[in-house]
């Protein structure tokens, strides 16, 4: 009896000693910040001493009202929704299909594909973000390839036009033909394209043909300008592309590992009964993996609502502020310029609320349509 009491006390002591480090860290890093965030989002705290400094008090939902009225908040939310959508409806299905192709050995060298497609996930998103922003930039890889092909196409056109005209023979007709293949944007430098270009061309000697070709190409050939980096409605496209590219491999690995747990006889039997690969995938593998898919979707939503580093490295929220997502909008209000900590905390809370709503929604969808495990 006595031994029983002593051992019970030892049990309690051992229990708390074992969980204490984790418990304290959890309190410091997760629990306390949440409570603090809720309090500060309702307060007029201005960044001074939190404990025993100037008094700060709870003032209610002012900051949330301000958020709702701020168009920038809705823009950031919209951008964030794009990221969530491309993650849930891009990364997950693609990852699933890739996993299935490898699992069913429809494509060979599964190990190789898996290894390559997962690679972006292990490289720093800062590195990848900067890399892609350079590739997409006006002095980057895509612009280089496109402009070179536009230029060589234009040079070929010119050569053809001059050949038809029988050499250096500047008539109105030739000039019109040149204008027809030129980039309309390049022509805006002329006030009267036909006359101006003709005068320009007549300034050359007939022997200068190669010079004419290269000058005209530089001047008039179509140039690719990465509009999507400055236009609001398409500025998110590169970011969404890189988001899709970066994490599809993660879901490929998750799904593949879970597919490999399925009893292969089940699939063989279905195939014997004449089911096609599409049917096997849709009617057997997909329902069996529904639990994993829902959990992946939840992690995917939570992750993509917090995407910060990739966009920060790619655009920093710019140009202007058109690619801001909620986390960058929050960062700006707390760390750039004059801090507004209550507003920043209200944004933090709206991110948390938003992810809870989406996660509950996902769970509801699972209940309604999901397979039984």
């Amino acid at each position: 009896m006595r031994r029983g009491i002593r051992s019970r006390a030892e049990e309690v002591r051992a229990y708390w000693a074992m969980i204490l480090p984790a418990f304290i860290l959890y309190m410091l890093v997760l629990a306390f910040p949440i409570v603090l965030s809720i309090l500060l989002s309702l307060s007029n705290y201005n960044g001074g001493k939190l404990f025993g400094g100037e008094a700060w008090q709870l003032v209610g939902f002012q900051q949330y009202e301000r958020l709702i009225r701020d168009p920038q908040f809705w823009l950031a939310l919209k951008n964030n929704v794009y990221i969530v959508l491309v993650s849930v409806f891009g990364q997950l299905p693609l990852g699933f299909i890739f996993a299935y192709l490898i699992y069913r050995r429809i494509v060979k060298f599964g190990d190789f594909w898996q290894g390559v497609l997962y690679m972006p996930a292990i490289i720093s998103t800062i590195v990848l973000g900067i890399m892609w922003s350079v590739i997409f930039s006006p002095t980057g890889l895509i612009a280089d390839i496109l402009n070179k092909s536009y230029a060589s196409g234009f040079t070929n056109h010119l050569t053809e036009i001059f050949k038809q005209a029988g050499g250096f023979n500047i008539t109105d007709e030739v000039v019109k033909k040149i204008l027809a293949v030129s980039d309309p944007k390049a022509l805006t430098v002329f006030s009267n394209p036909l006359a101006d270009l003709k005068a320009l061309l007549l300034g050359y000697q007939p022997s200068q043909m190669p010079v004419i070709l290269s000058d005209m190409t530089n001047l008039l050939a179509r140039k690719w300008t990465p509009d999507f980096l400055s236009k609001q409605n398409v500025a998110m496209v590169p970011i969404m592309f890189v988001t899709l590219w970066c994490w599809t491999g993660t879901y490929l690995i998750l799904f593949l590992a879970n597919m490999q747990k399925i009893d292969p006889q089940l699939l063989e039997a279905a195939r014997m009964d004449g089911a096609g690969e599409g049917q096997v995938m849709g009617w057997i593998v997909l329902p069996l993996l529904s639990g994993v898919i829902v959990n992946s979707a939840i992690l995917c939503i939570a992750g993509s609502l917090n995407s910060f580093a990739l966009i920060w490295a790619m655009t920093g929220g710019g140009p202007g502020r058109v690619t801001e997502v909620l986390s960058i909008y929050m960062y700006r209000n707390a760390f750039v310029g004059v801090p507004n900590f209550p507003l920043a905390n209200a944004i933090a809370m709206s991110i948390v609320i938003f992810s809870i709503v989406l996660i509950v929604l996902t769970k509801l969808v699972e209940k309604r349509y999901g397979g039984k495990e």
Partner: protein
Amino acid sequence: MRALLGKTPSSRILGIIGRVIAYLVMGTFALMTILPIVWLIINSFKSNAEYYLNKLSLPEKLQWVNYSGAWNIGDFRELIGNSFIYTIGATLGIVLFSIMAGFAFAKIRSKATPIIYGSFVMGILLSIQSLMVPLFIEVSQFDKLIGALFQLLHFIKSADNFHFFYNSRVGVLIVYIGSGLPIALYLCTEYIKGIPTALVEAARIDGAGFFRIFRGIILPMCVPIATTVAILNITGLWNEFALINILVSKTGLKSIPLGVMRFSGTMMADYGKQFAALVIGMAPMLIFYIAFRKQITKGVSAGAVKG
């Protein structure tokens, strides 16, 4: 008869077309991964003038100066040490504390378990990045509080520049360990639940205390899950940016991603150095991945929380 059905000529043609499409799509994805990285590495050896002249050729002469330049501008000599300290320290902390708490949750009876364990599991869904503002306020305010206390006790003269959490390795490690705990703790607890309770009870009857059981039975048996948890965390910790970005402002305490961030923007005057910095930033994890690909893949798929 039915088995033959799947082998009609038309379905075979369909199968071939499907295969071709599958290869095309996967090939495109794979090329989109390999080509940019190879292009980046090649161009990191070009001078700026050469880059502007031709972005698709091989470098005429390997410009190793890009690397020494980027190394110096980014202060990578200092940062790489910090990255190792943060990654190794936080990984060890996450693994050890998760196994300890997992042991308590799985093998020691307590009424507190459902509440505490439950709140940890909830933490999996909460991305800590959304808490960077309150975290920043917390660490800076705690520093002021501790500083004032120490000043009161005459440990230090002035609390103005006293930092315990902010701008300190301890602070970064605390945040990193705390943010990695929920999922690691979940994995460890579920794993330890699978260790036969009879083992623990037999040791108890023999008079062993819980700490001896932990050291002698649980820890050795947890090596597989410890490896998984470690692998699951290493790349993420090494590449972490959002949190350390707000926790540290001194160069001597920064990690590699913060150094690479200095090279952001297409306005960089020198592309060769920018690319060299990016290669420096990705090389360690790329090597780690190539060396431990099998284990990393296994760890990631184990991290798929089920249920």
